[in-house]
């Protein structure tokens, strides 16, 4: 059973900014509009499944959006690994696509860039949980609905994500330090 008419319009109007914000934060604005369209297209087609599932509407839509984002993992991975470029505001006076103006004022410190690169190495479920908590301010019940896991699994996933993020970021830092000192050592030897 599809959802249509005024109810469909209401679903879209009430939630489009929430879905768009989530998708744009993770994939960037370039492809987010098409992803949002795809998410709502599926939402309308599969509304009966939502009704049967008894999950929260926000959780259900976030689940659909998470699916759509995961399908575009190469795009998200690229974005996380190149966070320095993503977070750097365009120079003053530069011609900027209005759709690209959403990621301007983020920090681009080495810590943040390292953390975002480490985020790309996390298990997909853990990454989803961490971003739904830290970026979308979702509670554990909503995340459980979105990802079809229990609330306990959400909590465990969040703990795991934080721990692994710390471990990966530290390892990357060590690697970076080793690669920057290597040329000096080579010159000492010569």
């Amino acid at each position, binding site marked *: 059973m599809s959802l*249509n008419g005024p109810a469909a319009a209401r679903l879209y109007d009430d939630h489009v900014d929430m879905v768009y914000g989530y998708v744009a934060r993770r994939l960037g604005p370039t492809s987010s509009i098409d992803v949002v369209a795809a998410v709502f297209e599926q939402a309308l087609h599969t509304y009966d499944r939502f009704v049967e599932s008894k999950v929260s509407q926000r959780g259900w839509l976030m689940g659909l959006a998470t699916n759509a984002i995961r399908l575009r993992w190469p795009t998200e991975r690229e974005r996380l690994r190149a966070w320095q470029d993503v977070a750097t505001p365009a120079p003053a006076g530069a011609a900027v696509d209005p759709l690209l103006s959403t990621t301007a004022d983020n920090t681009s410190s080495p810590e943040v860039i390292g953390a975002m690169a480490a985020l790309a190495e996390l298990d997909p479920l853990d990454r989803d949980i961490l971003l739904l908590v830290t970026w979308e301010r979702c509670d554990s019940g909503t995340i459980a609905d979105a990802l079809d896991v229990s609330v306990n699994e959400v909590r465990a996933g969040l703990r795991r994500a934080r721990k692994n993020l710390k471990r990966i970021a530290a390892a990357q830092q060590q690697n970076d330090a080793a690669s920057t000192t290597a040329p000096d050592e080579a010159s000492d030897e010569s």
Partner: protein
Amino acid sequence: MNPSSSVEAARPNVGPMPVDARRQVRERLFDVATGAPPLPPTTNPTRNQSVKRRLVALALLTVAGAGALGLNATRGSDGDAVIGTETSLAEPTVVTEVIDVPPPPTLAPTTTAVPAAGSEASPLLMPVGRVRLDALSHTARPRGQSALLVRAPDQSTIGLLETDGLAPAPPTTTIPGAEIDPEAPVILPWERVGEIRARRVVSPDPAARRYEVDVPCGTLEVADGDSFALNRQEIRDLLASITITDGVVDIALPPGWDVISSGTYSGRFEVGLPIEANGGASPFLLVQYPGSEIAFGAYGGTQLQPIEFLGSQAWIGRGLADPSDVTIVGSFGDTAFTIRVSGLSVPQIEAVMLTLEAGSIDDWIERYGALDDPGGADYRTCLDQPEFSISR
């Protein structure tokens, strides 16, 4: 600042959805909600210029040299067999919509409302809604069949397929002067290779070419690359590594050989999607094997190379006679798939896959009818049925 706090601090500030985009998506959604086929957004004069530029760039990227692509989807309401307006996307700019704006499938995580393709509950991908199909079938797995896909040191791939059954029929003898069908496969005499006997089946049809290994109580076939020489060294090495004891086909792979995939499957679900490419119809055959590895889908003479497909590891092979004939073998979740197309690029194939949705076996039956019944009594009266065992 710890990394989690750094991630939180990096939260991009995203405003509301741009008004133009919001309106345009809204228009498309209401078309969908009322059952009409989605309008290609590129026909909307209010489309944002930057979006147009992106679409043109995508068109150049993905459709270069391949012409137009479209999925003919005829959707109807319940009770209508196939009705509605046929949407044939023939303009290159429209093609980008197929690639850039697919109905989302659900290949990875799930919600209770959104089944994940390849999961136990929703192992299949199917077209969204009622779609005209060029091919449709379900085949039950033959009893006791399993496959193996190995890679030789020269990076060529070789498939092996064992099927339980009765002992092979005795060899036929050719009567001198008898009329021979020139198209019929020619079975060469058995040869001893190491501890086993094998023979070559030669045919003009690549699908019929194979090596056969003499096993009790069943069959064991080996498919080498279509272009490779008869009895090439790699085949001889592979056959020489086989020993058969009480039906167990033990393969002691020599150094440098790898097993890419092995296993069995429960059923074979096949759909042919009507795709328009290069100004004409182009077959798009999707075969899915729930609960299986890729060994079955990969079995045959097509040589496979690794690629990334929809963000995951997959394998691609091209036709010997026509390199535009493409086979892609991969898996989503616990379901293996094989795609056979002609004249489509990998991004175009990915685009078509993105138009599919996850569904259960019951969904398949509801849409397409009952499954094939393996039927009949178990014919495996012979004790030592073949099965693979790999050792090094």
